[in-house]
């Protein structure tokens, strides 16, 4: 239940943040299909940018929402599914291999320990598959962004190392929650957020690095945890409960998914995101308005119709043409509320994570 609350808080903060920080004039031009296709075109490798610009130009001339959505979804599907190029492709392959190995180990564990299979097992399998595929797609999108792969992957390994340190390294200590140094779980995401911001030169770069680190660490640690369950089986549970060995194994498996596929990435991304924002504010000061280049006949991803992610253009405080002082005051009010909301949400998240997960490590 606390974890569910954490997710609700995280989603709410994300949505409210967009509302509070974006002034009315900051919304990218175009309807939802245009914005979605612009985002997808930004995922394409440099060698495929011309393809993305051709699709954007074609969408601009299409009429009818149904036709525009069909066109956009077809193009977005192709852009997301197409593998990235170069080193990003290798990193994506590694993430896929880790995810596939973890899924395979879960199947092996079910067969090896003869765990019972019912309807809820298939529901859980569907959820697990969805989460793993979602992480792969999310990781693929992040790996395509310039300046994200390096700090994100290195950060992911650091975060994984921190969780292994806290978990105790050996399978037995891992399943019995005998680790220590829980502070590492907070410190390392901060390092990732700060390092990603300094590496990428912007808060957006730091946030993306933190997200990629969260995905990388989640998949890696989940694989390690499932491997521990596959090897050790019904370890790490108080025998006085009277649980059967199969039930303990099932519980261990679900714990790995809950903690390492849900709590770990949420915690890493949230802390890294806050660290990136703070670093950018301290290092680079108030973000300057990003000037939009004049349109030319040569397509570039940075032109206004490419609709790059809003993170690439931090929202400046633009006065409203009709009522400048009122609009500025409203923007200031929104930005005053945002840190308060963020602080409260982070405090609640950290407290609930501590209660629900870090507590057993102190045994």
């Amino acid at each position, binding site marked *: 239940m606390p974890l569910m609350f954490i997710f609700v808080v995280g989603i709410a903060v994300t949505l409210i943040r967009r509302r509070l920080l974006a002034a009315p004039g900051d919304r990218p031009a175009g309807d939802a299909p245009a914005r979605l296709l612009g985002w997808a075109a930004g995922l394409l490798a440099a060698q495929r940018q011309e393809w993305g610009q*051709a699709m954007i*130009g*074609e969408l601009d001339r299409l009429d009818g929402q149904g036709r525009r959505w069909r066109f956009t979804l077809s193009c977005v599907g*192709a*852009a997301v599914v197409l593998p990235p190029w170069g080193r990003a492709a290798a990193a994506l392959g590694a993430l896929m291999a880790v995810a596939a190995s973890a899924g395979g180990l879960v199947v092996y564990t079910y067969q090896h320990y003869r765990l019972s299979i019912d309807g809820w097992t298939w529901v859980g399998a569907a959820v697990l598959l969805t989460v793993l595929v979602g992480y792969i797609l999310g990781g693929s999108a992040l790996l395509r962004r310039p300046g994200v792969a390096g700090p994100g992957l290195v950060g992911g390994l650091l975060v994984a190392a921190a969780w292994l340190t806290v978990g105790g390294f050996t399978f037995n200590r891992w399943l019995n929650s005998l680790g220590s140094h829980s502070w590492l779980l907070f410190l390392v995401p901060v390092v990732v957020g700060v390092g990603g911001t300094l590496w990428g030169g912007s808060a957006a770069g730091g946030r993306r690095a933190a997200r990629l680190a969260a995905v990388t660490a989640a998949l890696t640690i989940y694989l390690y945890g499932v491997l521990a369950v596959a090897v050790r089986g019904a370890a790490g549970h108080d025998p006085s409960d009277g649980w059967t060995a199969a039930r303990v194994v099932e519980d261990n498996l679900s714990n790995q998914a809950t903690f390492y596929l849900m709590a770990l990435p949420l915690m890493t991304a949230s802390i890294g995101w806050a660290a990136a924002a703070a670093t950018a504010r301290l290092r680079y000061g108030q973000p300057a308005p990003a000037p939009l280049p004049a*349109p030319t006949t040569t397509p570039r991803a940075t032109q206004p119709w490419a609709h790059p992610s809003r993170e690439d253009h931090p929202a400046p405080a633009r006065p409203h043409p009709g009522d400048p002082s009122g609009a500025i005051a409203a923007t200031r009010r929104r930005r005053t509320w945002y840190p308060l909301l963020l602080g409260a949400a982070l405090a609640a998240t950290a407290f609930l994570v501590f209660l629900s997960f870090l507590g057993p490590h102190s045994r």
Partner: protein
Amino acid sequence: MRRNRPLSAQAISVLRALATDPSRWRYGDDLVTEVHLKPGSLYPIPVRLADRGPLEATWEPGPASRPPRHLYRLSGAGREHVAALPPAARAARTTPRPNLRLSEASCR
């Protein structure tokens, strides 16, 4: 052409559609309609064909602040390529198949 690997059936479909009026510039949307491929599958094809030589591509500037559109037509090499296709193979390989997967639609 930079590579000598054979073109896919879908790439040849695009060439054949353009060959019906080789001198006319076409939009990508025209090709989507003529070749019956999904947009996400079609758009890599003319861009890659333009890289390889059979197509010429240009950008049509849009009105103020509107994105430009990509235009395509057969190049001289593309006309020669279509003319050199064996009639039987041309008929068999250029029959459009709707709902193709992306991997099938790309230029091999």
